[in-house]
């Protein structure tokens, strides 16, 4: 029975999803507040269960579901980001013909997929979790069904996603053929035993899977869906999509690519390829963002670039840095999209540079928040974004990847250019348009405030969190 506890957080989320959907289907209320409430309660419950599971090393289904500290941390992140997204959507959804109840259900289903992904050490389960996540994400992307951009984004996401999914399947097949086992741990162990070097076929099979995961976390050149989808999706959903699937994908990558004691090392070719992809991602993401006129799309590209930074952590084998970065990234990115969501009026979203002009005067708090999020994204101290980058890049250097770190900081420089451009618009240009903010939106403002708090707190005193993450990795190794 204790091991059955391993299933509890997942069950909480799934039952929340079901409850939300049932309320949506049968209560016939206009605003679906009940669904949202159910969803939030279930998320809180899940959060509570996650915290309770800390340190217990619960495992179930022969280890296919294992609540190691890393998984728990990530689950907590997912619960948190889902809560943020829900709060952001409370006002946002009804004003844009989005069915909040369905949104809640899909969001929670996506979260359950994410939880499955990060808490398993079996490729098949990871794949299924990924598919749950994907299917829910496609629907979330297109959930603003009257909006052409939203459905276009959904179609593109779906088409590319299923294409990538096929690669995953084929990779699974080859991996299975090579090792006869689909556990993550076995992927890179050779036929001669756990310590031997992996066979070419298993590396190749893993490569196919890595490609599919790269697609999910938007690594260049598998990233091209991302800007369109992030732009087309409703803003809270974008916040979710830029953070959660990326986190899950990266953690899976980290689990498989980072050698554990007593297991064969990752082939250097694979790591080099990943490093090259990281560099490409950082540069392409940042360069492409330079000339964007729409801040939402700009942040979409920035999200791609951040995948590159995060990949550096994977290359450097710095799990602590990776998770810390992910958490920080969650706060700053969710915060940034939160502000964008706050700026949207009824119907059209107002996320163009011209819309932001003069914001510093009209809505000083919103503008200041966005500025801080952007500075954090740019990695400027003393925000959390800087600290996160510091850990990752310094780990890369400590592992001898000096050039990778140089590339990363140069890419950050390009990034700084466009983040600052947004600030230019907000503070240094005068408004040409009327302010677009409509009513008060306390839930959204709460999210923004929490994110702000996170960004500042983690930049200055991340102590407990870092300790926690380090503990998680000590347990892992």
């Amino acid at each position, binding site marked *: 029975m204790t091991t059955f506890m391993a299933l509890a957080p997942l069950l909480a989320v799934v039952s929340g999803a079901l409850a939300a959907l049932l309320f949506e289907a049968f209560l016939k209320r206009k605003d679906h507040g009940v669904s949202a409430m159910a969803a939030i309660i279930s998320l809180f419950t899940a959060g509570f269960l996650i915290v309770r599971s800390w340190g217990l090393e619960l495992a179930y289904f022969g280890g296919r579901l294992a609540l190691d500290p890393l998984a728990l941390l990530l689950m907590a992140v997912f619960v948190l980001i889902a809560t943020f997204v829900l709060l952001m959507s409370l006002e946002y959804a009804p004003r844009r013909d989005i069915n909040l109840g369905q949104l809640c259900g899909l969001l929670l289903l996506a979260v359950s997929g994410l939880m499955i992904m990060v808490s398993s050490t079996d490729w098949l389960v990871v794949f299924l979790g990924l598919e749950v996540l994907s299917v829910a994400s496609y629907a979330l992307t297109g959930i603003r069904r009257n909006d052409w951009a939203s459905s276009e984004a959904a179609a593109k996401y779906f088409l590319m996603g299923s294409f990538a999914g096929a690669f995953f399947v084929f990779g699974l097949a080859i991996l299975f053929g090579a090792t006869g086992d689909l556990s993550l741990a076995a992927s890179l162990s050779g036929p001669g035993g756990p310590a031997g070097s992996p066979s*070419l076929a298993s590396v190749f099979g893993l*490569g196919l899977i890595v490609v599919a995961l790269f697609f999910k976390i938007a690594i260049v050149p598998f990233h091209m869906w991302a800007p369109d989808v992030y732009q087309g999706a409703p803003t809270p959903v974008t916040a979710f999509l830029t953070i959660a699937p990326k986190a899950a994908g990266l953690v899976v990558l980290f689990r498989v690519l980072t050698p554990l004691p007593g297991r064969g090392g990752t082939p250097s070719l694979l790591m080099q390829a990943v490093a090259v992809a990281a560099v490409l991602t950082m540069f392409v993401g940042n360069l492409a963002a330079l*000339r964007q006129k729409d801040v939402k799309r700009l942040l979409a590209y920035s999200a791609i670039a951040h995948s590159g930074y995060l990949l550096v952590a994977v290359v450097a084998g710095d799990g602590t840095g990776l998770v810390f970065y992910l958490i920080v990234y969650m706060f700053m990115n969710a915060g940034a999209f939160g502000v964008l969501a706050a700026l949207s009026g009824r119907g059209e979203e107002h996320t163009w540079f011209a819309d932001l002009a003069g914001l510093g005067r009209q809505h000083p708090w919103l503008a200041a928040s966005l500025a801080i999020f952007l500075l954090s994204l740019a990695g400027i101290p003393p925000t959390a974004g800087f600290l996160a980058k510091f850990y990752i890049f310094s780990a890369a250097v400590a592992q001898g990847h000096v050039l990778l770190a140089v590339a990363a900081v140069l890419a950050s420089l390009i990034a700084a250019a466009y983040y600052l451009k947004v600030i230019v618009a907000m503070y240094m240009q005068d408004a040409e348009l009327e302010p677009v903010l409509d009513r008060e939106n306390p839930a959204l403002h709460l999210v923004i405030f929490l994110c702000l708090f996170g960004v500042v707190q983690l930049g200055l005193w991340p102590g407990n969190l870092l300790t926690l993450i380090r503990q998680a990795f000590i347990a892992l190794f």
Partner: protein
Amino acid sequence: MAELFWLIPLIPGASALLLVLFGAKLSRRWVAWQACSAVFLSFLLSAVAFVHLVRLPPGAPGLTKTLLAWISSGPFASSIAFAFDHLTAVMALVVTGVGLLIHVYSTAYMAEDRSYARYFAHLNLFTFFMLVLVMASDLVLMFVGWEGVGLCSYLLIGFWFERPAAAKAGMKAFVVNRVGDAAFIIGILFLLDNLGGSSFAAINEAAASGLLSSGLVTLVAILLFIGATGKSAQIPLYVWLPDAMEGPTPVSALIHAATMVTAGVYMVCRLSGLYAASIPASTVVAWIGAATALFAATLALVQNDIKKVLAYSTISQIGYMFIGCGVGAYAAGMFHLVTHAFFKSLLFLAAGSVIHALAGEQDMRRMGGLRKHLPVTFPVFLVGALAISGIPFLSGFFSKDAILTGAFAGGQYALWGAGLLGTVLTAFYMFRLVYMMFYGKERTAMEPGHSIHESPRAMTIPLVILAAFSVLAGYIGLPVFFGEKADLFGRYLASSVKSGSPHIAVSTEGLLVLLATVSALLGIALAFVFYRRTPALPSRLASRFPGIYRLLVGKYYIDEVYDAVVVRPLVRGAEKVYERFDLKVIDGALNKSAAAAGLAGKGLNFLQSGLVRDYALAFLIGAITFLGFLLL
């Protein structure tokens, strides 16, 4: 009392400070009194200190006082310390004495000016810095005074800053001086580096004892002398002094004739040990002096602005002083410095009186016959002119003679000849001035109702005093002719200044004196012929030798040459470099790299075509490459 000698510079300094801070609120009377009495007090103190010094037994050290350990860092140390020895005493007395007279003179001369307090503040400040310069016990502190007087010169030349010419002249003076100062600093650096300090005593001693290599001595001496050519308006840095006449005339008298411009001479005398130790450097000094003396004298021949004539004359006379220094007759150089201070300030002040009388007119072609109108000014001017021309028994005669004798005695016959020729020219241009100003027809273009009148007493009394000194000052340094001990001045200075020139036979000296007298008279006679008897002669001569005339009037086009060779290429070049390099290359590279990033972004945005097939293509290419890489 003499121990308080360190107050000598500080009193005018304090007065200057007060005037700067509160001048605008003080009454003119008070300003005048304060400024004058400050200088007077300094003068009194200088006199007391001088008397103290004279009473000391021979060989006893002068007065010294360290006020403040100023800059000290590792091996570099310089303190604010004053010294008062025989040489200093001479300068201090001249500075405060002549300075006092000029202060008094100015109370009347500047009476009408709006910025009365500012003027006296600057004048006091100048006195302060000049006294710092002469009382400094090391080279670094001397440099403070050196730069300080330069600053005051700048301020006073540009006193009427609304006049563009004045503003320009002030700036020119400062910048040209700075060129010399740069060399001066390098010279100081050499000394500091090799001696660990820059006190004069140490330098002179090190040079004399051979502690410094001869090459280094020469190098340092020449570097410092370059500084002196700036301050003392010698070739090649003399160009600022004629322009400096834009300042008020008393300023010209004090700064640009009597005191500041002679700082270079003082410096060379102060470091006579150093210069004496280097024959090449001394030769350079002497020849620059001689060249300047002649060169400036020729320019003075054709100037029509009375102050400009006097300015070139000053340049020329300082050249004489340098000849003296260069041939080792340092005392003679100092002697000429002193006498020159008297008669040249006399001439300037008298010219100022004339200008004052003519309501600002400075062009001698519009003067004439002023003899009658200016009963005091005319005689004193005449005395000054006679003194500078070297007419026997006036001060200029003795001092110039001392220099020429020194040159002759040192075997530098060419220098002596140049000096003699200069005497002719000097006498000629001075009497050209006298004749054109005071004799002949009245050519003044005065407005009706404005009559020419003699200046007030505050102006004439200093003139008379200066005239008296111009006559008498020569007797402190009589030539050997009058006996072995007649050269009081030389003997007095012997303890501070290297005495060099060998004595020559009395008969030879007599001959030299005679020749000098004759050449002075010749100059006067020529001037009489040209400007009194046949006034048409100059213009005829000018049309006969148009080239020479134009060259002289154009001041040998040295200003133009400097402009064309140094200033303009520098400025134009800098402009070009700014546009072509700074903006285009450096900044351009930056902007280009930013644009390149933008372009790359544009390219990527183009690739992001919105078409799923393109996305899939990128995916496929990426996957194939990635996987192919793994298969390698």
